């Protein structure tokens, strides 16, 4: 997701516990994460999950299963965002909003599959136009009107301030 997510925020356990980490639950969890992000191709999911775990191992070395999983998930987020930014033609930026908007459109609009993000074919190129039309537009351009508080004058009571 955003570059800042690579900094782990949570307290970590001593790394000595990492010697015999079972990779299967981590891979399963990362695969589940890919599916929730909209991927459906099992072979692609397995390959991406494995890549994420390898990359996480390279980054944290001897770490706990929890740390390894977190790094793997962050790697999954990074790869997904990278693929999406490529598909949408988004330049690298510190502003997370455009990419988040595209991600939301991809995941929440019925009928989209995220598989094509990694296919690099015609479907990937078409995705951009289809997603552009579905990007969240939560407010229209502003057209302000002045609305000043009215002055109320009272008998027996203090009047309101302008």
């Amino acid at each position, binding site marked *: *997701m*955003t570059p*800042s*997510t690579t900094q782990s*925020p*949570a*307290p970590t356990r001593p790394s000595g516990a990492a010697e015999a980490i079972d990779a299967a639950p981590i891979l399963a*969890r990362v695969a*589940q*994460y890919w*599916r*929730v*992000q909209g991927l459906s191709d099992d072979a692609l999911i397995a390959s991406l999950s494995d890549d994420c775990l390898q990359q996480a191992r390279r980054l944290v070395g001897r770490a706990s299963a*929890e740390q390894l*999983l*977190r790094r793997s*998930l*962050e790697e999954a*987020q990074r790869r997904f965002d990278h693929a999406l930014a490529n598909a949408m033609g988004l330049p690298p930026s510190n*502003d*997370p*909003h455009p990419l*988040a*908007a595209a*991600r*939301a459109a991809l*995941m*929440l*609009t*019925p009928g989209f599959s995220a598989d094509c993000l990694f296919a690099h074919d015609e479907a990937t190129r078409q995705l951009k136009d289809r997603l552009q*039309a*579905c*990007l*969240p*537009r*939560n*407010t*229209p351009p*502003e*057209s*302000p*009107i*002045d*609305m*000043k*508080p*009215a*002055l*109320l*004058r*009272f*008998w*027996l*009571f*203090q*009047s*309101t*301030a*302008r």
Partner: protein
Amino acid sequence: MSKKTFELSRGRITARRILFLLLVVFTTFLALGMITSAFLQNGITPTELMLLILYTLLILWVSTSFWTATLGFWVLLRGGDRYSIGRMPPTRGETDPGPPRTALVMPIYNEDPTRVTAGLRAIWQSIQETGRGEEFDLFILSDTRDPECWMQEEVNWYRMCADFNAHGRIFYRNRERNVARKSGNLEDFVHRWGGRYRYMVVLDADSLMAGDTLVKMVDRMENHPGVALIQSSPLPANHKSLFSRILQFASNFYGDIFVWGINYWQLSSSGYWGHNAIIRVEPFAKHCGLPKLPGREPFGGEIFSHDTVEAGMLREAGWEVWIAPDLKGSFEELPPTLIDYAKRDRRWCQGNLQHLRMVFAKDFSGLSRLYFLMGIMSYVSSPLWFFFLILTGFEAYVMSQTMPVYFFGDNLFPVWPESFVVEMTTVLLVTLSMLFLPKFWSLILGILNWRRLKGYGGFFRAALSVFLESIFSMLTAPVLMIYQSKFVFAILMRRSVGWPPQNRDDHRLSLWEAIQAHGEHTLIGLVAGWISYRYVQGFFLWLIPVLAGLVLSIPLSMLSSSTAVGQAARRLGLFLTPEEYEEPRIIQLLKQNLEIVEAADANPLLPAEASKVTDPGACALHLALLPMRPVKKRQRHQLRALIYQLVEEGPEQLSPADRRSLISDPESLVKLHTLAWSDGKDAAG
């Protein structure tokens, strides 16, 4: 068929108001004359004087309501009112040359996102079916503080845009700070986007309006450039519990005569009920900016019940404000239980009592002052009735202790005490008649309109429903009287209630909940019953209906909260309404959409109990909608500390405000999301 149209003259307005006023004052004096003649016999005691003052205020209030209903009955007997906004001829005036664009605005605050979305989807679909959907945009103006509810609202909004291909037509915004509650929320809308729209239709979270109705409202505003606001008359609909079905029936069956009666004497100076109304944006922005009242809550501070004040401001600025009794297809929902009803009353009571100050505002006319007083009286009447009952009991006790003296002075023959049973019984009958006759008027109208009565289950079922509703309202009235009396005193003691969200979901009350809420009512009923039975047996008999309501409040409240009993009554054809008999399209759409929204929430890839932070789609959308705010170093450390606290102690240890702070920051949101997945369970709560 050409329809004859009539111009509304100043004289007509004055004549109608004078007639109404005379009827109310005459009735009050008549009842007062009878009770005074009974009291005057042996000179008036201080207790009797107090009783007279209380009775005057109460009978004035009762006769206002009675004559409003009776005039409405008269109007409906004659086939409607030619001086209503639906029948008035189009007026000439300066009109905006541009196409009329209308914003449907729904301010929400921690409401059930499923119901809100289903209602909005139904309204949107209904508008599209009119073929004039292009004239409308929809704004969800959220003041929601609850983090989970906030994210769910966003997801529901986005799905609605996607499903109806309405990107750029349906909008959502969540205010960072909910300044001035609902009125501030609307003010923010007008301030930011008001220039785009000629009209706005204000909706409540439970509002439901048919597309046809909305289109008609716009057309009426277009035809009458001097009108700033048209209030539709929303009917309760879609209820299941016995309590809300009884109220739904009562509003539906008796409502018409009251609304037509209001239109009869208020005409172009009517009121605003805060929702299901169309407003001309430009005068609203110009005149309805609400100031903060000097002093602290509950009488000072932000204006709670803003609608009455806003309508007053528009009228004082020379704009017309109408009610539209003929407009159907406007619905709202009621609290499902007696306790929820009382809770809503608590808020409304505070809002209305705050208007006490408005009565002294120099800028309002006598009519506006009268409206403020009527709003105040709708709550103050409860403690007045309460005192009236206590004083009547006390007076009865004093009378029972007084020995009649048959011989005094030089009189040779005994002087028999004069009996005023006839006068007092007449007073009682007059009062009861004024309370119950409007129900009878509605039944007569039903008999005269057989097709309408069919929607209520036919004559016998409708008559039985009226009878049972009368018993129910008689039993619940003392409970509400005590509740409202407590509210009035609490507010007079300057205890503010705040503005908690309203509970709209059906739920059967448990025995413990009912005891907590009504224990004191039962106790008051038993004690008052014992005292009156022990000391003034004659008064006890008169007091039985009041005592019965109090003593039975626990079982009555529990029974009436039941949806099973409510549905059984429906199967028997009791408390049936035309909307239940033949469901309007808009309610069908609501039901369909409730199913759609609930099904869309169930993501098979995520655990059912998973929070929205776990859902990557919801998280991405939330992030996309968050404003860019630079975070200071100190704030960043605070946010990190909150995440550590969450990891170590669990999300339930964080306050909703803390959780809101976390999901309001993009960096913290992403961390929470990752933690939720790496933890293997739902980290964000």
